[in-house]
């Protein structure tokens, strides 16, 4: 159950940090790429555009010079000579544009150094040409000069298309490779996570398998393994110590118990001493058991446990005690309930809950046990506890004011909680004006 929750992100590379880095990297790459393209554009094509403008301006200077030097007739004669040389086209008013082989001329041509670009049909060559033109104002009238820039224009268009594609492709490639890298990376991180999860579940012998030499993951794996090794050793050491304490303590206690028992048969008053001794031992064992449960050292023997049978058995044991308090136990079965769990531990958990209800609900109380789909609820109509106490109940050695008046050591609910946690079940406690209720659900 827990696995499903923790694994959903493990196989989704989009939430991994590597993926976020990839996205950041892709953004930076794109910005750098765009900057490079703008620079190349400025250096190559921008220069060519400026060259065209410079040529037109030079031509303008030349024409203005000619206009100042010659009278009108010789000026146009000179222009006629010029226009047949080079790649600059020259037109003037009353001139036959047809003679230049161009289909039309726009009316709104600006004065140089401003220029305008427009397409026109070249009838001589039979193709559409792109002209960059401007007007030169002379004392003999307006002269239009133009130069063909279709090559440049095509170059610019192609450059833009290629640059756009290059940007998109690099972005897509960065993302695709980033995704793949993120997955690969994540698979390795997940492997570490799985090992950590095993350790958390109590398998201290779990280790990360790695190559002898390699990248930072191999170093990390080595460190983790060293750490786990020392934890395992310490654990074994502590385990050994507690086992030894148990052994060293229990051997003299065995002597004591055997002697007391021998004497108690002759002298019944000694029975009280044995009972006290047993109570101490009971607490000692309960504490050891609780510690082992909390640290995942308690191996579970999982089997299907029938909730109804379990509760019936417990009621069977505790009913006479409840009867002594004139309490009434009712078992409701709303649904078939099968737990996958350790029979003895689940027995203990449910036993503790019912025993608590009998102990604290008060005389003449009604105790209801409800088996529903996936949960066992044990509720009573006693006084319950206040909210502050409610959150403290599952802590070890916590005893409410009412509990202090009764036998016990405050380990019962802590043990129930530990058993539920060990099974990944939930224990919820509620208390209101109707009484106290505890629910175990899976």
């Amino acid at each position, binding site marked *: 159950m827990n696995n499903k929750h923790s694994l959903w992100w493990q196989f989704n590379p989009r939430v991994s940090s590597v993926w976020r880095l990839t996205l950041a990297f892709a953004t930076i790459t794109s910005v750098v790429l765009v900057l490079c393209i703008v620079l190349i554009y400025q250096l190559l094509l921008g220069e060519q555009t400026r060259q065209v403008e410079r040529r037109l301006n030079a031509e303008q200077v030349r024409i203005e010079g000619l206009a100042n030097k010659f009278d009108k007739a010789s000026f146009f004669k000179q222009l006629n000579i010029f226009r047949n040389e080079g790649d600059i086209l020259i037109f003037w008013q009353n001139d036959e544009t047809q003679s230049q082989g161009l289909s039309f001329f726009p009316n709104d041509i600006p004065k140089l150094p401003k220029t305008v670009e427009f397409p026109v049909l070249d009838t001589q060559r039979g193709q559409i040409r792109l002209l960059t033109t401007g007007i030169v104002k002379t004392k003999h009238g307006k002269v239009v000069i133009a130069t063909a820039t279709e090559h440049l224009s095509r170059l610019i268009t192609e450059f833009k298309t290629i640059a756009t594609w290059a940007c998109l492709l690099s972005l897509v490639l960065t993302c695709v490779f980033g995704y793949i890298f993120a997955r690969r990376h994540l698979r390795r991180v997940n492997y570490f996570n799985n090992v950590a999860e095993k350790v958390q579940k109590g398998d201290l012998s779990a280790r990360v398998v790695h190559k002898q030499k390699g990248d930072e993951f191999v170093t990390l794996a080595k460190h983790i393994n060293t750490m786990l090794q020392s934890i395992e050793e310490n654990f074994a050491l502590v385990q050994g110590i507690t086992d030894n304490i148990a052994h060293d303590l229990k051997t003299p206690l065995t002597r004591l118990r*055997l002697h007391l*028992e021998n004497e108690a048969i002759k002298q019944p008053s000694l029975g009280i001493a*044995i009972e006290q001794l047993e109570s101490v031992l009971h607490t000692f064992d309960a504490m*050891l058991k609780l510690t082992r449960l909390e640290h995942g050292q308690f191996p579970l023997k999982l089997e299907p446990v029938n909730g109804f049978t379990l509760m019936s058995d417990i009621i069977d*044991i505790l009913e006479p005690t409840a009867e002594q308090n004139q309490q009434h136990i009712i078992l409701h079965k709303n649904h078939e309930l099968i737990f996958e769990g350790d029979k003895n531990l689940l027995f203990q958990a449910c036993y503790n809950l019912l025993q608590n209800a009998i102990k604290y609900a008060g005389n003449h109380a009604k105790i209801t046990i409800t088996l529903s789909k996936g949960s066992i609820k044990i509720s009573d109509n006693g006084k319950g506890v206040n909210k502050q106490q409610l959150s403290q109940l599952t802590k070890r050695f916590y005893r409410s004011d009412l509990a202090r008046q009764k036998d016990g050591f405050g380990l019962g609910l802590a043990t129930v909680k530990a058993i539920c946690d060990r099974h990944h079940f939930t224990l919820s406690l509620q208390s209101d004006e109707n009484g106290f209720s505890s629910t175990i659900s899976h």
Partner: protein
Amino acid sequence: MKLLLVEDDKQNREFLYKAFNEQGYTVDTAADGQQALLMATCEEHDIIILDRMLPKLDGLQVLAALRATGKNTPVLILSALDKVDERVAGLKAGGDDYLTKPFAFSELAIRVEKLIKRPSQSTQKTTTVEFENVSLDFRHYKAQINGKPLNLQPKEFKILHFLLEHQSKLVTRTLLFESVWEYHFDPGTNVIDVHIARLRKKLLQHNAHVNIETIRGVGYRLQKAHANE
């Protein structure tokens, strides 16, 4: 009946030696693993009581070595380690029963008796137990006092059955609980006392000539009722 007692603690060993001797057993003792293995393989015993933690050779190693030689003597393991996995390991290694320290001698005695009886019990086909004027037919789940039927709850029946089987003997609470409810769990004194009180009341009401005696801290004993009671 010959019994091999393996226990490293001198006082406990001596106490148990004396107690089993009084019960009519011939008792051999061993204080460490090596000695135990030697004695267990060289001589025939009806039962071996084996401590789990022993000097020189660990209890489980002794057991494994003994089983490897093909000896099937019933073995009861005594241990200070009350962990489920320890218990399982003990039984897996070939142990027949497991008792955690500190234990009551009466419980040990009954468990030993049970282990010795076990092989022959399957051939016995008795279905009734009797004591004084109380009789129990456990095949048909019928209890009678002076030939008149006694109405008992299923668990009361089981308790009475267990007590009758061990009549006049001390029966510990945990042993009773284990055989009646079949959970490995210690429910505490009061809970079982209440069950016993109920049964006792029923027996008294039906003029049974038996009484369930409670020996505080030790357990219960089914006895013949005194005439004046």
